[in-house]
């Protein structure tokens, strides 16, 4: 019953999306106000319908209704409740329903909180948003219907992939989708601006918070995925340059560029055409990512060819959206002229450099990801493009970016004297180089990675500190006055310092763990005591236990570091339904190093295979990512984006019941 209602709501939402795509756009062209305002209720109703539809599917998962094909294929009555719920989006159909729901959330948000937007702009934005909705709802309903019933329901379901039964991965897709789909807002605003031929500071002030929000979600989503890989896969890898990862990383790079260029549009009314193009590109990356992951083309070109319906559909959406947007851009971009003036050394130029480096880096990731497909289509040869390529081809751009960042961030708008601006930075630069040199001189083994990484990381973080010290005139005026100045700095400045410092921490974490990680792989006998990087390990015992829907083999390992000792418990789990083993590494976390132990199989002749890693400063990668996201969040709450606050109260009742 609920399932049929969910199906019905889905189809109704599709109908409302069609109305919302057409009527407001015509209204905006003709200047008919009553046609334009249709966009508001249709967007809100769509949101409520999709909430209902999503709730219906969730209900089917929660009560384990195996007459629904999707539930039967992806759930099991013994599964913990948390994973019954997250199982809703841990499959193709459910995740596309979530995709559509999030699209509707963003649409309803603009409809509800967008009272201060010019009516034409709001109508056009919502119309474009609805066009995307029509496309993806059609995709869902006609190729990936989550509500299909089975004639003969099985007694129990197939269960969920054990690797997905994990909190880190359970919440990874919703965050990624909030990011992916959030970029549709920037896209819709860009298309609306191209139709109107007008981009001004007010436009940028609207686009930037949406982009910022999408970026924060993407940052968290990517970090969650990477953290999950780190603790779940059993050897502590955190980034693999895998096509699926790249699919989320490309939109992130483009969104990062976009939220910087939108600052220039807002503050200085220039770089308009480029910003609009970036908005289109950023969402295009989201669409390309969706296509790559959803079509199956990555697994093999042949998998795509044998079941082409879904892939072709998304490819069609891709072609129309990107092709259409770029065509519109080609015709209309020249209307977006500006006359703002700035000199070669200025914040504007710094941000242009930022955009150049991030865009080229994103392009390198795109080409690297698609290259095997290109080669297979053109020559029939099969080649691979993996981590070693990306490490070599991508990293240099980040190095240059890191070198330029503190300087670009401290330059004033319009016109700068490089000498003056650099004054507060020279000391920090010397300090960072000294730190790098110290590390280079003291470490054993001659790898340059750690010294260079540490120099860049401290340069970015210290540069941010110098910027703040300079702006609060620290040391030049009484301390109390400095503190007051610091407190009064806009939130967006705090956000900037946090986000940039987060990047510094990530760079530090990556270079430290890459350069200084140590490992030990061996067959360990009970009671044998051995050393790795100053830690001593003894395998005490191995026991068999039972989990909720898996069996456990758990080892107890005594760890000593000279001053204290503690026990660690690496596990292997065997999921009963899927007959699939997973490793649960034991990780002793601290700010300076992780001790990472993974248990392997029993060996012929006694003992167990045990892998131990000491990973210095590895957690800085994810702490840095969180600091970065926190920076974005801080910036999002800057006073100047709260212009919509008064209208929010008035509009709330409409959206409240569904939330």
């Amino acid at each position, binding site marked *: 019953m609920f399932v049929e209602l969910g199906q019905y709501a889905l189809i109704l939402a599709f109908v409302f999306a069609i109305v919302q795509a057409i009527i407001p756009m015509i209204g905006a062209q003709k200047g008919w106000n009553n046609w334009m305002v249709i966009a508001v209720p249709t967007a809100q109703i769509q949101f409520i319908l999709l909430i209902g539809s999503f709730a219906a599917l969730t209900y089917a998962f929660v009560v384990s209704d195996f007459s629904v094909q999707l539930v039967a*294929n992806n759930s099991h009555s013994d599964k913990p409740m948390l994973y019954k719920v997250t199982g809703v989006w841990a*499959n*193709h159909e459910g995740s596309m329903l979530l995709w559509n729901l999030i699209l509707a959330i963003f649409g309803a948000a603009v409809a509800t909180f967008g009272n201060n937007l010019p009516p034409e702009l709001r109508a056009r934005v919502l119309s474009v948003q609805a066009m995307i909705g029509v496309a993806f709802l059609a995709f869902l309903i006609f190729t990936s219907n989550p509500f299909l019933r089975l004639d003969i329901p099985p007694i129990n379901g197939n269960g969920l*992939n*054990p*690797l*997905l039964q994990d909190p880190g991965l359970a919440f990874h897709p919703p965050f990624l989708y909030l990011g992916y789909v959030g970029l549709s807002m920037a896209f819709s605003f860009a298309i609306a601006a191209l139709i109107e031929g007008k981009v001004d500071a007010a436009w940028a002030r609207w686009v930037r918070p949406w982009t910022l929000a999408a970026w924060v979600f993407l940052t968290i989503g990517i970090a969650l995925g990477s953290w999950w890989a780190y603790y*779940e896969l*059993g*050897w502590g*890898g955190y980034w*693999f340059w*895998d*096509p*699926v990862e790249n699919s989320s990383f490309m939109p992130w790079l483009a969104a990062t560029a976009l939220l910087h260029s939108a600052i220039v549009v807002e503050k200085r*009314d220039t770089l308009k055409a480029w910003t609009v193009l970036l908005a289109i590109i950023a969402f295009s990356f989201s669409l390309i990512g969706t296509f790559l*992951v959803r079509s199956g083309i*990555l*697994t093999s070109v042949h*998998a795509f060819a044998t079941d082409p319906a879904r892939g072709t559909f998304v490819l069609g959406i891709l072609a129309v959206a990107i092709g259409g947007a770029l065509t519109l851009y080609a015709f209309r971009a020249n209307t977006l002229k500006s*006359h*703002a*003036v700035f*000199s*070669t050394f200025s914040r*504007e*130029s710094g941000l*242009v450099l930022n955009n*150049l*480096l991030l*865009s080229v880096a994103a*392009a*390198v990731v795109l*080409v*690297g990801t698609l*290259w095997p497909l290109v080669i297979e289509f053109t020559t029939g*040869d*099969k080649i*691979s*493009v*993996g*981590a*070693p*390529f990306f490490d*070599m*081809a*991508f990293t*240099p*751009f980040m190095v240059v970016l890191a070198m330029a960042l503190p300087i670009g961030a401290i330059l004033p708008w*319009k016109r700068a004297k490089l000498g003056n601006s650099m004054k507060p930075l020279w000391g920090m630069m010397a300090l960072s180089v000294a730190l790098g040199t110290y590390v280079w001189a003291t470490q054993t083994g001659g790898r340059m990675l750690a010294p260079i990484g540490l120099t860049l990381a401290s340069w970015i973080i210290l540069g941010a500190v110098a910027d703040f010290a300079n702006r609060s005139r620290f040391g030049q005026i009484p301390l109390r006055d400095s503190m007051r100045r610091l407190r009064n700095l806009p939130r967006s400045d705090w956000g900037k310092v946090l986000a940039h410092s987060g990047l510094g921490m990530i760079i530090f974490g990556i270079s430290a763990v890459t350069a200084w990680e140590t490992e030990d*792989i*061996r*067959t360990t006998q009970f009671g044998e005591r051995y050393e790795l990087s100053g830690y001593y390990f003894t395998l005490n015992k191995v026991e068999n236990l039972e989990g909720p829907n898996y069996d456990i083999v758990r080892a107890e390992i005594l760890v000593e570091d000279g001053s204290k000792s503690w026990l660690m418990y690496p596990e292997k789990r065997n999921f009963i339904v899927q007959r699939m*083993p*997973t*490793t649960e590494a034991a990780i002793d976390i601290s700010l300076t190093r992780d001790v990472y132990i993974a248990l*392997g*199989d029993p060996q012929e002749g006694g003992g167990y*295979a045990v*892998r131990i890693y000491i990973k210095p400063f590895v957690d800085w990668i994810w702490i840095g990512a969180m600091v970065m996201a926190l920076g974005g969040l801080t910036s999002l709450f800057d006073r100047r984006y709260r212009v919509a606050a008064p209208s929010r109260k008035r509009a709330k009742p409409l959206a409240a019941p569904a939330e």
Partner: protein
Amino acid sequence: MRYLLFILMLASPAMAVEPSEMLADPVLEARARVISKGLRCVVCQNENIDDSNAGIAADLRVLVRERLTLGDTDEETMQYVVDRYGEYVLLKPTFFGSNMILWLMGPFLLLAGGFGAIVFIRGRGKQRPEEGLDADEQEKLARLLRD
């Protein structure tokens, strides 16, 4: 479903290099590890043989170690594997033929984009007004004067 399948293949959950496969000579073993990280497990999704748990990856790891023990250099070992399994096993594509486009794309785009950016920034700077008014202000002034 394909997505799940994909994750399943990406993440072979158990161990990669087994202690029994490893060489006693630490220098030789270290070289084997480096080589392994550059070779793709042919049945996996974008996974190197050092991280992979697949049977064929284990075979390849042993093969690499055999070649090294026989006295092959790193390059000869790589070539030995490529001769048998094709370029597909190389996670770092060769720098030949059409792959040049792949390798040179980044530098090329940087040069082209950098050129465009410089032209743009130079253009912005040239319009510098003498009175300290920017273009918008000048336009406003002109309008005021006209009225």
